[in-house]
């Protein structure tokens, strides 16, 4: 009898250990892990868009000094920037497809206005020789490229996350434990190559 009593006291501990190691090995943690990855990649997207927005005032000031006749283009950039930065986004935006779309539209509009500005700048040789402008231009190019990379990573992360939720066994875990985590929307490609950086050429 003594034996069975001791067995009884040890058995639950062993079973608990076994169960927890089994569970962590079979994907119960996958959904939260992928969810965190999506959030991290989304943070990176926001970060890079913010970086671009921060570059713009300097750029506009520099261009203004040389290209006095381009008021319209400059105003369009400034307006697009203020519209884009006025949309408050955070991690909760991910669960709000409407807002995500709005954010994307505003950023696309800014991309368009910026590339028009860069095209216009080409008409001003003095501007193109300005060191400050050259530095800003390379930063803008670099940032556009970073945006492209961040968006691509984000899209891949969402894809991975959604796939986990929709396939076995992630589907089971999702219905059992993580039903508060929805299928996520990602960026729509508005152009065929929307996740590539617009070429800012001179």
């Amino acid at each position, binding site marked *: 009898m003594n*034996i069975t009593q001791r067995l009884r006291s040890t058995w639950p501990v*062993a079973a608990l250990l*076994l169960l927890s190691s089994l569970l962590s*090995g*079979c994907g119960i943690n996958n959904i939260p892990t992928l969810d965190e990855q999506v959030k991290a990649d989304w943070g990176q997207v926001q970060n890079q868009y913010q970086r671009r927005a921060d570059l713009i005032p300097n750029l506009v000031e520099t261009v203004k000094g040389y290209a006095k006749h381009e008021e319209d283009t400059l105003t369009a950039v400034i307006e697009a920037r203020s519209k884009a930065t006025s949309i408050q986004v955070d991690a909760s935006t991910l669960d709000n497809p409407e807002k995500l779309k709005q954010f994307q539209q505003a950023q696309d509009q800014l991309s368009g206005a910026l590339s028009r500005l860069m095209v216009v700048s080409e008409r001003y040789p003095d501007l193109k020789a300005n060191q400050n402008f050259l530095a800003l231009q390379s*930063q803008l*190019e*670099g940032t556009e*490229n970073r945006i492209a990379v961040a968006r691509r*990573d984000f899209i891949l992360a969402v894809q991975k996350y959604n796939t986990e939720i929709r396939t076995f066994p992630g589907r089971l875990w999702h219905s059992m434990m993580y039903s508060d985590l929805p299928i996520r929307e990602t960026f729509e490609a508005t152009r065929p190559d929307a996740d590539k950086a617009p070429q800012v050429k001179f």
Partner: protein
Amino acid sequence: MGGLQRMLHGVLLSLALLASGAIAAEPEAPAKKPGLYLRKAAPEPVPEQAPRDETPAPLESLFPELSGRVVDGAGMLGATSIRYLTPLLAAHEKRTGDQVLVVTLDSLRGNSIEEFGVQLGRHWGIGQRDRNNGVLLIVARAERKMRIEVGYGLEGLLTDALASQIIAGMGQDFAQGEFAQGIINGTQAILDTLRRPTLARVDSYQEQLKSERREDFFLFGLLAVVLGLLFLLLRQVVDIEFVRGKYQPGVSRDSSSSSRRDNSSASTGSYEGSSGSAGSSDSSDSLRAGGGSFGGGGASGSW
């Protein structure tokens, strides 16, 4: 009671195997949830660790072999230049930990050099994993394009504007057909830029190396303690079952000790496996890609 014994056996084996990280499906493990075991056989996605290299197939087919610090796929550098550049880059890594590589290739085959740069950097894992301090100087001959791809960790030092200046300088050499000279000048300029705030960075790098060693030691110790505790617990269970029970002690001793041997071999195997995967890629002239990542920083240009 025989059923209980078999079950305990299964528990013992699977618990030890799982705890030590060996993922091989064990036939003796209790077939409680077959679906879960099915899942284990498949390679699990590890998002934080794996350098993301799920690129479209055509891009991946362009990636050259990581044969050294200078991968001259387009044959734009003579043997002399390669022999000059390689120790220069190796010395820089020894000093600061930064991995700077030179890559030339024949053609991008329709890909943009920006995308190629990021994905190649991630694919190779240039730079240390936690510092992301890799730099690639890429020249695509057919497209007449070049790019400096800067890892996350060096974007503050080798900024887009500075990289763009270096590219412009190289473009002048390239325009005159001085490819080797242009690449050497460009590499030199990259190293000079990275070397600027030397002292603080070198110190912090050496400091970090030390703390990493301490960390490794600590982790190893922790692993040993955890495994030891597990063995103690398992032995207790086994002893109750076999030694005090109505079964022959000899048989049970044998089985428990043999399973212990299994455990230890499984644990060393998994340890080697994990350290092997951390070392990621092959080494030539002592280049060991550290698993760094890239985020699209740098500058491109053409000639």
